[in-house]
């Protein structure tokens, strides 16, 4: 039997919608109940729900596990339990080895401190000793590519630089178990690749890696095993590709997600010339409509649409910002709609549409649904791959047959000397 790294034994976690304790009158009885441990067994009260519902799995040493699920499925809560930040209502968690959790890049960074000071601070917060940070300092700065700015206060950093430095510190932790939540979604593309390479190196070194991401391609590439979470339960546990496929097949109901930011997505659909449909002929024009609603007043909202194919490859994405459309500011309860017209020059297969809302200037995410909807591409010409280049066979004929002697001729070494 191979050694386990991490084990969750029938873990339950009860959450309450809204405020936890508003008054002492509320807190004290619950403390007393907690003290006698009866509270663990009781059923759900109204307003309560299981954010983790009987989570039971084991991760072997050296395994790479990807956790996927829609927003609000319980992924982050699960990671917080794994890393010991939260304590389960029922069940137990066993951790075998030094665990480092990277739930937010640059946690503890202080804007007034310089990059150098923050590296030390963050390194120690994440569990290194000062001597360790000192030893790895050059490597960390080099990885982040911030040598010139290391003595500048981080408040002058761009969000990308901030994220790079934060990730870089965490990437040099050398833990036995590394838990990563969505941190690679920050930074530019090259840095994301670099981050995945680094994680791969950590995994190669024998560490167990648990990875949560919306970047399905990264999960598919990186993890051998996947877990799909839905409403706090493990729906599928198996090889990553199977799990992702299953995930893509469960379209999201926009309304079932808990509200997070001031503005949320309420619907995403794709329609063709004849109205809403799920099947398109290659080359046809389609309209992707994203509907959003402000819960509270929201400023500078920009919309992103993204297209994935069944291999989780990011086929295409764009945003209102990229297309030169100014962002919208919405008042509470105000609704908005955004139409993107696209020409579907796509190869045959299933495609998944994701929609994101973010704040234009700070690039912080407001809401995100993936897959929001899906559609199938058909073509009269059988071709494979993401793009459809409308191939036509222009010529396909054999050359006239020739006598045997001449067939041998090309076998002689060709004369490669320049003329």
């Amino acid at each position, binding site marked *: 039997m191979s050694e386990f790294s991490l084990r969750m034994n029938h873990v339950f976690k009860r959450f309450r919608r809204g405020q936890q304790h508003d008054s002492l009158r509320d807190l004290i009885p619950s403390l007393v109940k907690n003290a006698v441990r009866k509270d663990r067994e009781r059923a759900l009260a109204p307003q309560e729900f299981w954010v983790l519902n009987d989570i039971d799995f084991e991760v072997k040493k050296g395994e790479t596990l990807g956790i996927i699920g829609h927003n609000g499925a319980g992924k982050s809560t699960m990671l917080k339990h794994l890393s010991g*930040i*939260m304590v389960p209502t029922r069940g137990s968690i066993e951790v075998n080895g030094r665990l480092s959790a990277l739930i937010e890049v640059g946690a503890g960074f202080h804007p007034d*401190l310089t990059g150098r000071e923050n590296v030390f601070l963050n390194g*120690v917060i994440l569990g290194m000793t000062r001597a360790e940070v000192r030893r790895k300092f050059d490597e960390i700065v080099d990885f982040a590519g911030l040598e010139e700015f290391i003595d500048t206060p981080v408040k002058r950093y761009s969000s990308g630089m901030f994220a790079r430095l934060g990730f870089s510190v965490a990437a040099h932790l050398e833990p036995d178990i590394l838990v990563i939540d969505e941190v690679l979604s920050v930074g530019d593309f090259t840095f994301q690749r670099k981050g995945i390479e680094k994680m791969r190196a950590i995994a190669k070194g024998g560490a167990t890696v648990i990875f949560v991401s919306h970047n399905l391609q990264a999960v598919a590439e990186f993890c051998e095993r996947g877990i799909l979470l839905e409403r706090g339960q493990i729906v599928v546990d198996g090889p990553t590709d199977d799990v992702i496929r299953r995930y893509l097949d469960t379209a999201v109901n926009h309304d079932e997600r808990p509200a997070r930011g001031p503005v949320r997505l309420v619907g995403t659909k794709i329609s063709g010339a004849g109205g809403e449909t799920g099947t398109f002929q290659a080359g046809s024009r389609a309209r992707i409509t994203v509907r959003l609603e402000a819960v509270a007043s929201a400023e500078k909202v920009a919309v992103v649409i993204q297209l994935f194919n069944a291999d989780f490859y990011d086929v295409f994405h764009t945003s209102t910002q990229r297309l030169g459309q100014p962002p919208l500011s919405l008042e509470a309860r105000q609704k908005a709609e955004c139409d993107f017209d696209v020409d579907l020059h796509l190869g045959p297969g299933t495609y998944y549409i994701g929609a994101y809302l973010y704040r234009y200037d700070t690039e912080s995410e407001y809401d995100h649904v993936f897959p929001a909807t899906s559609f199938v591409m058909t073509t009269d010409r059988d071709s494979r791959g993401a793009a459809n280049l409308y191939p036509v066979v222009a010529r396909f004929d054999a050359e006239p047959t020739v006598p045997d002697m001449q067939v041998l001729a090309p076998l002689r070494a060709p004369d490669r000397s320049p003329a």
Partner: protein
Amino acid sequence: MKEALRDLIRNRELLYMITWREIRIRYKQSVMGLLWALLMPIIITSAGLVVRIAVSKVSGRPITAADIGGIGVKALPWAFFVSALRFGTISLTGNSSLVTKIKFPRLIFPLSSVLTSLFDMAIAIPVVVVLLPFVGARASWNILWVPVLLLILVILTAGLCIILSAGNLFFRDIKYLVEVILTFAIFFTPVLYDASVAGKWRTLLMLNPMAPILEGLNSTVIQGRTPDMSWIAYSAAIALLLLWGGTVFFQRLEPRFAESV
């Protein structure tokens, strides 16, 4: 409790770094720099001076240099107490992103507030020491009591910070309560005056665990006398009780911090 101590020792570098961060931020962008550490004690002493002058006008008893020295010596620990409590109370809520994102003993936050304020006091102490001969302090071996008194002070402050930080995480109005109490506490604590002015009510005044510490500092540093042992023991007992009870209380609530903050 034993576990808490072991946790803290294991995370001493973190305690150091968080304290360092607080100190660094506090002094980095301020024009006055280290003078900040002196500002509070100077204001407290000045206020005490005004009160004393007014009292001496009424009573006809002239103020002595030792009176002023006494206020100065008590102003430092009082400034420490107030600033540690103020920062300590909001230490968990102010670091909510760390509380919800990273696992480590959260006791570090209130304790680092205590250490940060202790640093301020450590800067101001030499200034007071230099001034002591000019305010008629009587040098004696009783000065050796000072570290003991300061230790009791730190334990008392830490205990309160631990309790208040956890309390404020669940009930945000505790912060305002602390502000109000600290604003007026100086009237109920013998900082600007001596406990003896209360006459037969002195005992009532001394029940405030801060009072014996401040009185003790005044008698050992300025008057060269031994402190009032039974009251010192009382303060020490309260301080240890608060630290112990506070830690137990804190740790009982700690698992719920991340979801409540």
